[in-house]
């Protein structure tokens, strides 16, 4: 019973015990210890892959149900109870569809683009603190790693746009890239402000800095709103869904993609939604901290709270025009974020 409680609430302790025990046993066999570490790392990666898939299956279903709720219709309700297996059916369908490669495409770039888009989304999961001690690797440069890795997905989008050799793909890819880089700057400035307040880059450290319910959303309410707006733009969702504005660009940079390649774009989009919400929950809502329930549960409650908020925004506002979109970031968000940073610096030093 104690062990179960430790695993749920205080994962560090049983894990360190198990780690020490495994290493002692391994030493008895006389093999070098780094091989065991590599096995553990592989296990982490596979576990995170499974979590990512299950979570993506759920979040797609959740998104469609919420969308249905907002539009007063039923949403998926045929496959399985309440339509719960709809996403699985879609995945299987995409897996057995024909993979069409148009003649004009640049095959290498065309093939690598979904891979390049998927890799950053998966690698960011490395530093998401799911619970106390439940983090694949608490890198001391955590949030910097997040910024660096998410920046890489722009390359995948540009590759998809350029490699497809279709006019819609090219314009969609370029728009998407310029939107991503523009909204990354206010996001970075807000993250810098949080780093200033917590004095550490590690994700675990940022959660620790908010311990005792001193969550950052209240002192950083401006930063929180900026982060939500910029995050919504980063995941290409309405009102910032210019890259896949279906009325003008068909489907944006993934117009030419089919079957599993398309599935990876789709998967990356929803995983990005989850990651942005998870980072917002970690930076502003105290991560896994909360009363009674286990930390993991609190983490998912907070993350899905932000996910729901983003969906609400998505179904409330109409799409922006492309010039308004760019000006909104450069003329409003970035000056406000800089100002927010300066004010925070003054408050920290002088108060």
């Amino acid at each position, binding site marked *: 019973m104690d062990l179960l409680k430790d695993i749920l609430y205080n994962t560090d302790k049983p894990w360190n015990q198990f780690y020490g025990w495994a290493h002692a046993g391994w030493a008895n066999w006389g093999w070098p210890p780094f091989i065991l*570490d*590599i096995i553990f*790392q592989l296990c982490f*990666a*596979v576990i*995170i*892959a499974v979590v990512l898939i299950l979570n993506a299956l759920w979040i797609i279903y959740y998104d469609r149900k919420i969308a249905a709720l907002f539009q007063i219709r039923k949403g998926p309700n045929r496959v399985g109870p309440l339509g719960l297996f709809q996403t699985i059916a879609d995945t299987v369908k995409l*897996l057995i*569809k*024909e*993979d*069409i*490669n*148009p003649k*004009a495409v640049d095959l290498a770039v065309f093939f690598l683009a*979904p*891979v390049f888009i998927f*890799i950053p989304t*998966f*690698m960011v999961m*490395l530093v998401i603190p799911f619970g106390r001690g439940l983090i*694949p690797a608490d*890198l001391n440069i955590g949030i*910097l*790693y997040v*910024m660096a890795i998410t920046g890489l997905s722009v390359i995948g989008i540009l590759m998809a746009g350029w490699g497809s*050799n*279709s*006019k*819609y793909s*090219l314009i969609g890819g*370029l728009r998407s*890239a*310029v939107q991503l*880089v*523009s909204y990354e*700057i206010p996001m*970075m400035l807000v993250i*810098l402000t949080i*780093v*200033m*307040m917590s*004095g*550490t*880059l590690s994700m675990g450290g940022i959660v620790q800095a908010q311990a005792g319910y001193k969550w950052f959303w209240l002192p950083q309410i401006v930063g929180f709103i900026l982060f939500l707006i910029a995050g919504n733009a980063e995941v290409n969702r309405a009102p910032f869904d210019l890259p896949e504005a279906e009325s003008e660009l068909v489907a944006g940079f993934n*117009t*030419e993609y089919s*079957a599993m390649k398309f599935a*990876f774009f789709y998967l990356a989009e929803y995983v990005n939604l989850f990651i942005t919400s998870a980072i917002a929950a970690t930076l502003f809502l105290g991560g896994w901290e909360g009363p009674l329930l286990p930390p993991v549960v609190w983490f998912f409650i907070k993350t899905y709270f932000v996910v729901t908020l983003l969906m609400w925004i998505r179904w409330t506002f109409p799409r922006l025009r*492309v*010039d308004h979109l*760019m*000006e909104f970031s*450069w003329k409003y968000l*970035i*000056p406000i974020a*800089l100002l927010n940073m300066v004010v925070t*610096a*003054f408050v*920290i030093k002088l108060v």
Partner: protein
Amino acid sequence: MQYGTVLMFLFVAVVFAVGGIVVNLFIGPHKPGKEKNTVYECGIDPTGDARIRYSIRFYVFALMYVIFAVEAAFLIPWAVVFKTVPGIMVLIEALIFIGILILGLAYAWEKGELKWD
């Protein structure tokens, strides 16, 4: 231990993505056709190449992004030690740095580079 996990994640991500696409190649049907293998352009035959000249604005914004990204990279070490360094100098120095940056942004704004036309 920790940074090894980054490499392992990269490895699993590549295997996962490439594996998914390759499995799809094997179990999916393969029936290419002349019409099917053209790129989409509202149902008619595509005219010319898609790699045409596009707006210079994309480059301008990419350039501005590089400036701000480098600025953020410079500010990160400052932000980490900001609370622990005593004295007011740490604030003034950063204010000068951010001030120069805001001047640059104001200049670009004044020049009309932030406008998308």
